[in-house]
């Protein structure tokens, strides 16, 4: 089963850029003056890469959050990082700085991270569930602030904000791809450096502590790395739900191995999931693409429930 899926994924990755509203004959692709060449290299290819990297970051973020919080329902958005990004994007739009919205989104995400860790440093004893609650409280606060933004914005601005919250993989050129590739490399490097600690955290905090781990420091480093990476990803694409929740669970069901061995598969298939979702969104034949966040939830939620039923019944 694993090999079949891998083969399918590789084929998918290769053919994904060729499908879309405009047909691209291969003969025209290498003619650098043609429109097809431009569409392929400036729009399609960056888009597929963007989907892959963002999907990978979100899925891996989900794995880390579920491990650190020992809660299978946490996602990279649980601590409010995505809500922070969304709120600041809305602020950028309402203030008339739409073009700078990725920058605002990044500032929003990072500010959230700083607030979280600022609050956490005041805890007398390390307690991941308190941190989780602070994140949830922040999310609600941001949601209320976002409502205010909707309320004071014009119809056009409201529409722009709404589109951001649905997620979008529209991108032109490779500059942003390089930033995301570096972000992914950073996240993977941090996780690999801490993979033994991660494996110990997969048992219990107590056991990890007795093996000499500084549990608090390790958790903070992992959460910080994920939050930064997710902040960067969300600032380009908006919040794309469900990837971080379902991909780790699906991969565990398929591989039946402990999470520390699934770091690369989860990154790869998280990316593939978003590439596939985007491919479907671009080719449904509607006048405009279906927002990617809507599609991931439509695909992900039923499949996730199916897996849960299958696992519980076997």
């Amino acid at each position, binding site marked *: 089963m694993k090999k079949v899926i891998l083969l399918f994924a590789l084929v998918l990755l290769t053919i994904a850029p060729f499908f879309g509203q405009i047909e691209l004959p291969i003969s025209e692709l290498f003619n650098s003056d043609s429109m097809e060449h431009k569409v392929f290299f400036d729009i399609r290819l960056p888009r597929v890469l963007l989907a892959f990297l963002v999907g990978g970051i979100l899925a891996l973020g989900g794995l880390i959050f579920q491990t650190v919080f020992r809660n299978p329902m946490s996602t990279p958005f649980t601590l409010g990082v995505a809500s922070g990004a969304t709120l600041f994007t809305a602020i950028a739009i309402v203030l008339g700085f739409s073009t700078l919205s990725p920058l605002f989104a990044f500032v929003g995400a990072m500010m959230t991270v700083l607030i979280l860790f600022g609050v956490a440093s005041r805890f007398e004893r390390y307690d991941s569930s308190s941190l989780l609650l602070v994140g949830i409280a922040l999310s609600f606060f941001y949601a209320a602030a976002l409502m205010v933004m909707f309320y004071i914005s014009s119809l056009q601005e409201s529409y722009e904000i709404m589109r951001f919250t649905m997620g979008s993989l529209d991108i032109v050129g490779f500059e942003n791809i390089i930033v995301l590739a570096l972000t992914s490399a950073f996240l993977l490097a941090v996780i690999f450096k801490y993979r033994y600690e991660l494996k110990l955290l997969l*048992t*219990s905090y107590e056991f990890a502590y*007795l*093996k*000499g781990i500084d549990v608090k420091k390790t958790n903070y480093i992992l959460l910080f790395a994920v939050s930064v990476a997710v902040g960067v990803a969300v600032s380009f694409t908006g919040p794309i739900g469900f990837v971080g929740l379902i991909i780790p669970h699906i991969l565990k069901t398929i591989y039946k191995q402990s999470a520390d061995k699934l770091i690369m598969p989860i990154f790869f298939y998280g990316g593939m999931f978003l590439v596939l979702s985007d491919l479907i969104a671009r080719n449904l034949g509607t006048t405009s693409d279906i927002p990617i966040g809507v599609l991931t939830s439509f695909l992900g939620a039923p499949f996730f429930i199916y897996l849960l039923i299958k696992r519980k019944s076997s």
Partner: protein
Amino acid sequence: MPIKIDNYSNEILKNISFSLEAGEHLIILGSNGVGKTTLAKILCGMTPSKAVTIDTINPSKVYGKKRAKLINYIPPKLDVFDEFITVHEFLELGFIGGVVGAQHPTGIDDVLKKLQLIHLANKACKMLSSGESQLLLIASALLHDACYTIFDEPTANLDPQKMQLLFGLLKDVTTLQSKLIITHNLDLAYKLGYNILFLEDGAMKFYGSNANFFEQKHLDTLYDSSVEKRENNIVVKL
């Protein structure tokens, strides 16, 4: 290197002071909720306190091998979050040095055989019965081999044969360097013969030799005549 706790008090415990030399063993007794596990967590540094030192080092202040070498705590129940971690993988982590990347630790199979767990080596920890989990924890303690190892009710879930097996290990003074055993099983405590620390209302009511503790008169005052010494066995009157 002796372990020392110097006049420690909190909401549960009152004025706890004692020290134990490396190589000595101790049994900790006391009724439910009296603070035995609390005391264990303080000794390990899981609940940080300035009152504890092991060879002049405070275990909550050091990290890595340095701490792992000093003291280990074996909880009454196995807690593993990931559902696919196997018995063998769990024990690989149980090694001192597992943290810094011992790729192929030896000795795991020997310990698994000793505890009659070898047939479970590739089974997921989450799928073990409570008795098997308890033996797995004991196995991890043997591999970890800290200077002091605290066992928190190690026999609670064991069947009679497994109980004998574990008794043999705990009785053997060469098993681990120093053992601190928390238990409610008075017969076990009596037959191990190690010194006794008895807690009552959070305070140290008795700290001394096994023989003195298990005098019938002493037992009557401590346990309100609910325990009896009968033909060299400690029996709970039912």
